[in-house]
């Protein structure tokens, strides 16, 4: 990018040292950048620092000398690798299938692919056990099997289903952005079938695949709900962190364990960073094409359809059980219908409204913030860019428990006395999910040639106008996916907010856990079903309000 001296800038300002010159040229941009840095520092780094300062030397020593935790560390890495690989593969399958115009029922598959994200914690896992467990409705009653799903294999299956939507969201936008003319051109040059896929489509999807793997990997590393439910004797570090706090209130040890969990997360981050960067994936070059993607051949089409349909069936059954359970008298024993389970949900109706309100605020604020941060980091030059990039994806590597405890420690006293308010819950929801929007925006930006923006600048557009008129429309899909993802995830987030709720700000997911933990599966699933319905209703409302133009499910 050439630096021309803009109008209104004196020669003296232009020749000032680097940073001062930037501020003089673009005061608004510099202000926004400073604000982004300040917010990330306050709501991401400060709580982490407060938690990591908590354990003493004794706890770090205990961590490294206890054979149990070393073994658990091995388990954690193993399952994270397995689940990431399968979830990304499945996510890619769904994203690829739904990006092709001729795969039957693709709109339905798009909808079903986000179902696991809408599922509240614990209930989805239990539904899975009720369906496929030792006495599961499908495995035992239907097929007469009495297999044992508790262990690494059950966990692998549950995590794959739970996390593939994250990969799907990261990949769908990227695949849709691949210019179809490239595939047509390759076909004209003789590449067909798998060769075309391997040499053209797959390489173009690599930034998406890498960011999907990063996100899923970190989610798998810090997942505690699923290992708790179906891990059985196969224990992982995240569960141990959570139970150190919930069981004996050992904050120091929990903090040390989350510190240990940070190591592989950071390694993943570095890998992604150096593997993907240094390659060019620009496919939008301003020479637009609106051709439909390449149609698929018959066997491929039906293969994709069968695979998607199978997964969709499993997911539908899982969530059907939640809805059936909400109306059942005694979950698992007496399936006669009743409305009694909803009495409590209505009785404490405030929780559901709190969830919707807080999640909506977090979604709007979070997606705007993450897209803005991605834009600043990848299109502007300022000192500490790498650190901001790092901080924006760091929350995904942090166990929710650590965030929750860190927020109490950091925001309990003035000048930032936020505990007990709704603001702290919104902040926790928002900053926990920014990595998703941020990564999606980065992947989107990586495919947009800077020459388009430079063109706008050459035509006289100020930076803000370029952002608004050129860049933003082009990364709209990243913004949408961030919005939808943050809203859905915040509606169901639990491990962080459970430390932050107060009377008047209790959210539905906290109540669901409390009910589920005591085995009140009927009430828990009634509230869960209400929560899931609320998510769908709000999304539908958004879609209707935007005149059907907001593409919620075509991410």
């Amino acid at each position, binding site marked *: 990018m050439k630096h021309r001296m803009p109008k209104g800038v004196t020669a003296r300002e232009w020749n000032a040292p680097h940073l001062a010159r930037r501020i003089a040229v673009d005061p608004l941009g510099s202000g926004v950048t400073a604000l982004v840095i300040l917010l990330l520092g306050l709501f991401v780094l400060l709580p982490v620092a407060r938690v990591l300062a908590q354990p003493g030397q004794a706890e770090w020593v205990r961590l490294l000398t*206890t054979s*149990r935790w070393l*073994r658990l560390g091995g388990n954690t890495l193993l399952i994270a690798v397995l689940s990431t690989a399968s979830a990304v593969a499945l996510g890619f399958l769904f994203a690829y299938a739904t990006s092709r115009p001729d795969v039957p029922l693709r709109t339905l598959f798009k909808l079903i692919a986000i179902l696991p994200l809408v599922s509240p914690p614990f209930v989805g896992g239990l539904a899975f*056990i009720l369906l496929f*467990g*030792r*006495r599961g409705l499908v495995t035992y009653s239907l097929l007469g099997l009495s297999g044992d799903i*508790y262990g690494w294999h059950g966990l692998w299956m549950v995590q794959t289903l739970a996390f593939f939507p994250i990969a799907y969201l990261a990949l769908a936008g990227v695949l849709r952005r691949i210019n179809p003319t490239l595939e047509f051109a390759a076909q004209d040059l003789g590449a067909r079938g798998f060769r075309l896929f391997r040499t053209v489509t797959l390489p173009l999807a690599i930034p998406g695949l890498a960011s999907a793997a990063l996100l899923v990997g970190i989610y798998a590393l810090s997942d505690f709900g699923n290992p*708790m439910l179906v891990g*059985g*004797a196969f224990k992982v570090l995240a569960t*141990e962190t*959570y*139970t*150190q*706090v*919930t*069981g*004996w*209130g*050992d*904050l120091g040890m929990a903090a040390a364990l989350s510190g240990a969990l940070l190591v592989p997360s950071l390694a993943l981050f570095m890998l992604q960073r150096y593997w993907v960067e240094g390659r060019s994936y620009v496919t939008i070059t301003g020479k637009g094409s609106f051709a439909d993607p390449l149609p698929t051949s018959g066997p491929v089409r039906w293969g994709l359809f069968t695979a998607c349909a199978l997964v969709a069936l499993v997911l539908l059954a899982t969530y059907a059980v939640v809805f059936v359970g909400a109306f059942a008298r005694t979950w*698992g*024993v007496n399936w006669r219908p009743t409305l009694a389970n909803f009495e*409590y949900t209505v009785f404490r109706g*405030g929780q559901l409204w709190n969830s919707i*309100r807080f999640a*909506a*605020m977090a979604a*709007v*604020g979070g997606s*705007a913030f993450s897209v803005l941060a991605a834009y600043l980091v990848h299109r502007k030059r300022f000192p500490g860019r790498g650190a901001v990039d790092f901080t924006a994806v760091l929350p995904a590597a942090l166990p929710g428990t650590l965030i929750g405890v860190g927020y*109490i420690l950091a925001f*309990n*006293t003035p000048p930032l*006395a936020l*505990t*007990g308010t709704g603001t702290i819950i919104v902040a926790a929801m928002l900053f926990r999910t920014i990595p998703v929007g941020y990564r999606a925006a980065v992947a989107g930006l990586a495919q947009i040639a800077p020459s388009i923006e430079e063109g706008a600048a050459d035509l006289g557009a100020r930076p803000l106008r370029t952002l*608004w*008129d050129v860049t*933003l*429309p082009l990364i*709209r899909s990243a913004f949408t996916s961030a*919005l939808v993802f943050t809203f859905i995830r915040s509606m169901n987030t639990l491990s962080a907010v*459970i*430390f932050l709720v*107060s*009377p*008047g700000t209790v959210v539905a997911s906290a*109540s669901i856990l*409390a*009910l589920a*933990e*005591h*085995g009140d599966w009927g009430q828990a699933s009634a509230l869960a079903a209400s929560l899931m319905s609320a998510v769908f209703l709000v999304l539908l409302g*958004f879609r209707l*309000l*935007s005149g059907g*133009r*907001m593409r919620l499910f075509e991410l």
Partner: protein
Amino acid sequence: MLQRDRSRRWLVVVVGLGLAASLWPAPARAQTKPVMVYGVIHEYTLARLMQKFERDTGTKADFIRLSAGEVATRVLAERQSPKGDVIFGISRAIQESMKAQGLLEAYKSPRRAEVPGKYLDPDGYWTGSSLTVQGIAINAERWKKEFGSAPMPKTWEDLLDPKYKDLIVAPSPLSSGTGFTFIVGQFFRVGEEKGWEYLKALDRNIRFYTPSGIAPTRMVAAGEFLIAITFAHDALKAISAGYPIALVHPTGVSWDVGSVSLIKNGPNAAGGGKFIDWVLGRDPIQLIVDLNFEGSLRSDVSLPLGATPLEKLDLVDYKLDWAAQNRQRILKQWGDLFKK
């Protein structure tokens, strides 16, 4: 051009909605400062209890339901500026650890005279409110299918029979008070050395240890496993919900006391004291017994539905001081010995 207009209008809609949501008035707060209770018993029971407190005394009480460790963590993290007044229903072991960290305020309620002396902290930091005993929960339906009319296990030693291999689930003491109460109960029953031998023998039949105390009963209720180590009230609750569970109390059974305490420098200490005086009375305790199936420490409160009377149980001599002093050592030893 079309693309630009679309995305703009759409942005305006979204931001407008977000603003509307954030400007929506928060639920109005009560005029007088409510009492803030951190409770570990069932959420619904707590809600009913707060309703009753407000009706009986005219003072409003709010609550949050948390697990025992979450209460300890939260109170510790909030120590500079506490947000809660009362901790309710929590195990004595956690109370002792919070007391040692200086997080509690001594409060000698006049009601303490009505609670037997061994269920009180002599320094006044906590007062017992309920008595919970342990037992073995068995899925009766599965038992009938797999073992027919054979007698169910009656003693702790019966559980060592190899035919129960992989059919038993137990809570892990590393993360659950139920699990810790169980293993020290074995030490109090047969002595520590023989207690470890017993636990090692039992481990051969255990499929795995669960992080939470209630999970084994839930899994047995659903028929996933046959036998669970449990607290009686968890099993009684599952039975009253209609699950086919048989509850067995072997001789030498472990027990614990749920207790109430005042948080140091809480925002409403006077209201907190008022709540403690009230909740130790007959009617609130009866409500807890009826809804939560925990045993009471009061003689004027009836038994939970389906519970075995205390005089028919053989409880171990639980030495609280010994358990508190040796907890870290026992947990480390357990963690090194058992891998499930």
